[in-house]
């Protein structure tokens, strides 16, 4: 499937689900001539229509690309440059874990672990100096940001419910 087809189908499904969910909303009142569901219905109907158009154009593109793909494959053409999607997925996982653990571990501990893990993921340290840089960056980011925001700017950061730190 082409990316347009996928994007269109996802947007179409979401807009239809939301459109169905507007059914229970109250209707117009004496003071407000349009109920709270009217505007969302218009917006969602437009979104659904545009998504359907994207599905249609994606489907057409897929058909025409299939017709051209055979000679390309025969010629051994590759599609696009090398993209490290595994690394992206791992980065999202590390960040997701950080956001989930933040309220339990508190800003300083969670940030220390996150910055260290993310650095190790993006550029695995291979020498003692690299490990030292990794640890120093993690410490400075976690404790430096905490000091600047909490003490300098009076911006409170999360305390950990497990660590009270």
């Amino acid at each position: 499937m082409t990316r347009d087809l996928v994007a269109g189908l996802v947007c179409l499904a979401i807009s239809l689900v939301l459109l169905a969910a507007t059914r229970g909303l109250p209707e117009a009142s004496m003071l407000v001539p349009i109920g709270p569901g009217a505007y969302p219905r218009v917006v969602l109907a437009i979104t659904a229509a545009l998504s359907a158009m994207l599905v249609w154009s994606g489907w057409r593109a897929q058909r025409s690309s299939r017709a051209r793909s055979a000679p390309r494959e025969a010629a051994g053409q590759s599609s696009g440059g090398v993209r490290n999607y595994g690394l992206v997925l791992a980065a999202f996982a590390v960040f997701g874990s950080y956001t989930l653990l933040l309220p339990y571990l508190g800003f300083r501990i969670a940030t220390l672990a996150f910055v260290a893990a993310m650095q190790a993921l993006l550029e695995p340290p291979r020498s003692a100096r690299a490990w030292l840089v990794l640890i120093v960056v993690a410490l400075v980011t976690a404790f430096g940001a905490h000091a600047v925001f909490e003490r300098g700017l009076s911006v409170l950061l999360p305390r950990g419910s497990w660590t009270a730190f």
Partner: protein
Amino acid sequence: MFELLGLGIIDILQWKYLVPLCLGTLIGIIGGALPGVTLTMTIIVVLPFTFGLDPLQGLAAMVGVYVGGESGGLITACLLGIPGTPSAVATTFDGFPLARKGEPGRAVWLGIWASFFGGLIGGLFLVAATAPLARLALEFGPWEYFALFVLALSMVVGLVETSIVKGLLSGAIGLVITIIGTDPIMGVPRLDFGTDFLKNGFPFLPVLIGIFAFAQVMSEIEAMKPGGALERAITAAPKLVVSHVRVIGEILARPFLLLWSSIIGLIIGILPAIGGSAANMMAYDQAKKFSKHPEKFGTGTPEGIIASEASNNANVGGSLVTIMAFGIPGDAVTAVMLGAMTIHGIQSGPLFMQQQSKLAYGIFAAYLVALVVTVLILWVAARAMLRITAVPKSILIPVVLVLCVVGAYALNNTIGNVHILLLWGVIGYLMVKGGLPLAPLILGLILGDQIEINYIRAIQTDANPWLFLTRPISGVLLGLAAVSVAYALWQHHRQAQRAVESGTDF
């Protein structure tokens, strides 16, 4: 007007405002100089630092980032051939060849001084035009506001480079985000599926930070190789000594080029949600068309550098006009500024100039002072900026993400905002992968509530829906919106036809 501006400048020159302004400008220059770090990202990083400041301090810092960032990109563009920001792409075309010809100082300082003069022209327009435009906007009723916001959205949709359907769909997704949560008129919960997470809807800033930060950071990670910095480039930073009188003379000897490039930058800035990235390319193209020696473009001609840099800095002035007079952000950077203003309880838009005139003229003053500060910082530290580009991305990315988390959390000290950041980070990245442009989404997100509120207010005042078309200003604005979409459709159709005729294989 000039009295208020003078008072604003006196205010800004106090240490309490000058320090955040200078720090903001420095961070902006660094962010601008770092290839792969956009101005939007830089201002998102600075955002949480402004929460603890007073409104003018925070906005002065952000204006500094904006002005500094537009100039920072030219250093790497001229000396490494890699634009630090999309706003400096066209600077590379002639800046880098000129530097390679043995005149790196001339290349860099032509850019810096052109930025300064372009920014100054933008500043004059900002000071002179904002108040009259705001007065005009005060005459607007809900019909006109509705029409103005629809026009803004349609223009962004028309200006996206990908397909028009994707542009429209992206804008519609932005509107969909605003209908989730409590309805702005009656306070009825909508589409929250009974969950606390969705009950209050999605606050604008965590969504914006998530979408823009992750779209960029994850795209960087995708293409990462070990040691992903520009270490190779900075073995010996060149000396940038130059005769400033001669360089300034070179720029001022081309008044038409300077003025026209700045006007292009201003117009692009005024148009919603497109910024310096379009301005510098269009100004470069125009400079080439008007030049007596177009064949010299791309070989290190000063005209190319002047056009690109004057336009991208004048663009800042144009963007600030739109946000201050109409409350519509000129680009993603001003969208973040709009969010910061909201956090401080400031409503931008036509009443802003009347109700917050001290703050408004403080922003004007900050803009003008930031231009001078930018020149001074680059005077001292232009060569050092090259060394900063050697910071590995493996260090930069986690630090940026931590600051995004702080920015989202500190809005109202709830962890829910951090989860919204993550959710929209994933969605933003998937949207980029799906080829959906982000600018229309952001504008839809910002204007969604206002479109709904003004639509309902208009119907409440008079149930006749034809008034949207028969009231003169509203009718003209909606007509322009239709023309904008029709023109974009025609342009896309024409491009597709040309591609078919030239046998391009998609």
